[in-house]
């Protein structure tokens, strides 16, 4: 399929450029932007700031869009960011069953598995099983709260700060925050794991 599709895309782009409907240099820049500027490192900075600054954590939970804007992040698929905090009793996880809604400015473009029929269909029905399969076994007493981002809001999970990180600065903490932990299918790295990795 891929060769035929690649040829089709090439043909379409050639037509659109000839017809002067698309500027190919802007297309290059869009690709470069999403490959280099935007990604989970942005979200990690937000989470690390929230872990170290209680005032910022409060603002993040009250108005995610404005709080991520404090770090300069915003753009398409980020016009209503809602941050949801994990606690010792509630674990949050995000899915979009109708398409693949995802907070681009803080996490980048979604990974393939997030867009897969298996994840989209199962996460709302079997969250505990799916999380366990993905390596996240949660104790029975922890409520799993699944957010199906069906409308305007784009959800960002705020994981709990790992233990053994007292005294760590923002930059160091940001290295512990994984993309998966901000979707809710993983936990942040422990300081040991981060050192080994």
């Amino acid at each position, binding site marked *: 399929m891929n060769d035929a599709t690649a040829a089709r895309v090439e043909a379409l782009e050639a037509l659109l450029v000839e017809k002067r409907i698309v500027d190919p240099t802007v297309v290059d820049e869009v690709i470069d932007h999403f490959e280099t500027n935007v990604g989970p490192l942005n979200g990690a900075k937000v989470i690390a700031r929230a872990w170290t600054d209680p005032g910022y954590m409060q603002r993040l939970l009250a108005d995610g869009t404005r709080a991520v804007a404090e770090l300069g992040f915003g753009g398409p698929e980020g016009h209503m960011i809602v941050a949801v905090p994990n606690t010792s009793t509630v674990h949050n996880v995000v899915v979009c069953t109708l398409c693949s809604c995802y907070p681009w400015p803080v996490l980048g473009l979604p990974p393939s598995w997030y867009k*897969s029929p298996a994840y989209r269909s199962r996460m709302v029905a079997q969250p505990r099983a799916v999380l366990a399969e993905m390596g996240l076994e949660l104790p029975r007493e922890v409520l799993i709260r699944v957010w199906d981002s069906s409308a305007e809001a784009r959800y960002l999970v705020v994981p709990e700060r790992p233990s053994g990180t007292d005294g760590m600065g923002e930059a160091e903490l940001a290295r512990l925050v994984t993309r998966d932990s901000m979707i809710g299918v993983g936990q942040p790295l422990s300081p040991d794991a981060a050192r080994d990795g």
Partner: protein
Amino acid sequence: MAPPAITATPIASIAEPVASMISTRGTASSCHRHRGYRDDTPVSPASNTQVFEPVLRVKTRCYRRAMAAPSDMGGRAEFFGPVIRESDEPVFHERWEGRVFGISNFLLPLLGRNTDILRFGFEQLPREVYLSSYYRRWLGGFEKLLEGAGYLAPGEVDARVAGRSASARRRRVSRARLAGTARLVRSLLRPTFPRWFAGQVLPRMLGTSRPALRPGRFTIGDDVRVRGTRAQPYTRQPGYVTGKPGVIVAHLGATLLPDAKAVGRHALPQHLYTVAFRAADLWGAAAEPDTEVRVDLYESYLEAT
């Protein structure tokens, strides 16, 4: 001890079978044994636009939706399978995926289309195209948009692939509009923005929040039920919450209604709520313990209980 009272849910008509399913929840749970609701009606390959008349299957008390769109995946057992993660996944796997994404980002503002028009286009693709790959879906959606807007002739891309040139004179875009679109798209390609721009200008520019013209019907803590049918031909009401009881847990203000936006219909801004559903109310006996699902739903999707 008296048996638990069955909630007397008024059943308006057979067109609301979900209501009747809920009122007999005790016996209805058997239809969830396959962990998900069934959707075994064949889908016409020609079109996924469906007539949404839920059919009550008296035998099993399951309801099934006639010709469910493949996009509405939540809880559908036919899509269940292992979730496969790829380590060090690239942003784009193939060069063409990036090209499709980049072209789409240019065309959306140029053509003045919104994401709901785009998603509606994806949902109308033949089922096998919709399910083939994420960016294949984008490609199909934009080809349709371009044809619909008169920038591409039907078959023009096919002809080009085959090395023929189609000489159809088609609609053009003025130089000024092309340059304006390029400027607009470029203005969003920055690693960071000034705080006021990211926090106040971008959300207004890109989002659809609007002042509400009247107060919302619901408040946090209200018990609600999702209406028993889904709007046609496009809606953001997932099938698996259709007809289900839930509780309002947040009010997200008012926004343009996607159902109207996708088809260019005018509608007043609608209040948007986050509704919490207990897993047992959604999945019956197959529900996992201590789990809940929260879904953002527009006011017109909801009924007071």
